[in-house]
């Protein structure tokens, strides 16, 4: 992602900041006063047991849900309560836990259409869609190792390939911040290794800021430079993998159950 937009907003070292973010669903406080800061260029993970509020946190940040209290600041701009498309246009892309793709379109059409949208061609009525934004489309297909599947309808892909396409769609948005909700769920070991290698590469070579959730603790500890633990909607702690591993509280509420 060599996108370096020229903006009048002073570039800060913080790309994402939430303050006191809170969301209730009925009687359940799914996200409770979360104040989280993500530095530009970071590669971090959010962990927590099922129901900890990881997905709700992503939904609040990306505009899927509107917070009941608190604020979200993305790249210096207040994006609290903005609809998903407005936030996506500002350069935040999201890949979903359960792959959410376009089943009746081929892999190529999925990615190509997403790139065309990003390039402002959504209301281009007269060009031949098959010839627009192909360069970038092919780049992303190669990057996500989907090139040989390009003519397969997305609905017929294997679970692992669906997750790759999910990531490819997020990349098509040429984001500055990539939110990945369990990027390797349903993938084989080999696919997991490939995908996380790509995530590392996007972060290190392309300067993309990445925030991900993951159930697989080996993935978390091997790839995140900082880890934040959520529990029952609250942010419990944030630290380096070594710090988190050594923390007693983490052991008791999260890792303890599995170890």
């Amino acid at each position: 992602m060599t996108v370096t937009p020229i903006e009048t907003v002073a570039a800060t070292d913080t790309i994402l900041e939430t303050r006191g973010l809170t969301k209730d669903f009925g009687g359940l406080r799914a996200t409770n006063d979360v104040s989280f800061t993500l530095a530009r260029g970071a590669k971090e993970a959010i962990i927590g047991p099922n129901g900890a509020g990881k997905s709700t946190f992503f939904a609040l940040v990306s505009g899927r849900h509107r917070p009941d209290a608190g604020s979200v600041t993305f790249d210096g701009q207040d994006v609290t309560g903005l609809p998903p498309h407005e936030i996506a246009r500002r350069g935040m892309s999201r890949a979903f836990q359960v792959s959410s793709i376009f089943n009746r379109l081929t892999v190529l059409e999925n990615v190509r259409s997403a790139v065309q949208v990003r390039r402002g061609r959504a209301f281009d009525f007269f060009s031949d869609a098959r010839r627009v934004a192909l360069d970038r489309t092919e780049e992303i297909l190669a990057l996500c190792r989907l090139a040989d599947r390009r003519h397969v309808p997305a609905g017929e892909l294997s679970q692992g390939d669906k997750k790759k396409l999910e990531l490819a769609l997020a990349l098509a948005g040429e984001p500055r911040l990539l939110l990945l909700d369990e990027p390797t769920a349903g993938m084989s070991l080999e696919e997991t290794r490939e995908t996380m290698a790509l995530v590392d590469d996007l972060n290190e070579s392309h300067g993309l800021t990445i925030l991900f959730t993951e159930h697989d603790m080996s993935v978390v500890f091997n790839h995140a430079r900082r880890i934040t633990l959520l529990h029952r909607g609250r942010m419990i702690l944030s630290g380096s993998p070594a710090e988190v591993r050594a923390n007693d509280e983490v052991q008791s509420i999260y890792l303890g159950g599995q170890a």
Partner: protein
Amino acid sequence: MSQKSLLSASLLAAARDRLDISIPVLLVLAVLFVLLPLIPGEFILVVGTEILILGLFALSFNLIHGFMGQISFGHAAFFGLGAYTTALILQPLTAAGGLGTITFLLAILAAVPVSALGALVVGYFCVRLTGIYFAMLSMAFGELIFYVVFSWYSFTKGDDGIQGLMPPPLLKSPVVYYYFTFVVVALAAALLWRITRSPFGYTLRLLRDNPARTAFLGIDVRRVMLVNFVLAGSFAGLAGALWGPFARSVSPTLLGWAQSGVPVFMSLIGGAGYFAGPLVGSIVYTGLNSYVTRFTIYWPLTIGLVILAMVLFLPGGLLSVVDGWLKAKRRGEP
């Protein structure tokens, strides 16, 4: 799966990507439509003209249905608005006996902005909903517009409709009006074809397959839906404009819910998943209607049975048969 079979599967899909079944179907249909007047008698021209007009109506409907994944049960409102616009302009001119060809063409074109405006107002509300709610709201608005036209006697002549419409002298003979309709419908269909294959056309397909995800790509879903609703209404208006001079009159039933069902049935019969599907559906529906009603008064029963058979045995429409047949044939080749 071996490497070889993977490769051939993707090549096969590539071939399918290049050869849209609608292309050969449209070419064959175009030739048939051009040759149709070789069949003697005026009746076939009447049927042919009706097939073309309602075919364009159904093609416009399919922008909303097949490409955007919603069903409108009020699409006839825009067909009817177009028909009345042209009729209200033509009627006094025809009565005065001075209708020129250019004036006539302008009266046809005038239907487009009127229907577009109607679709903009109705669409503004409908695109806030999806699925059955979208369908019901579009039907409610369709009926609302129907009752306005039905009740506003001083302007629309209400239930009497507008009588005495006529094409200009140059286009008056049935065969000439048939070819005129053919040219207008062919040009409109070519434009629709272009739109459905454009980046906008693919944006519609994104909405059809997964509207929630589309928003996260940076698309304002409602805005795309509204623009498409207006486009579909505009083409429906153009189809409606051709109706009055053909049928010699227009009446409020052109806007009613029964008329809104026509493109739904046509898309179902031909195959909403194919660009040419609604046109094929119009041939079957209109053709059947024209001939069956000569022999029996049980037209609703007949079309009901046809629809029932389609839903039960061919949910993909008639073109899915041709599609499957072509694919099987291609697979058989080395």
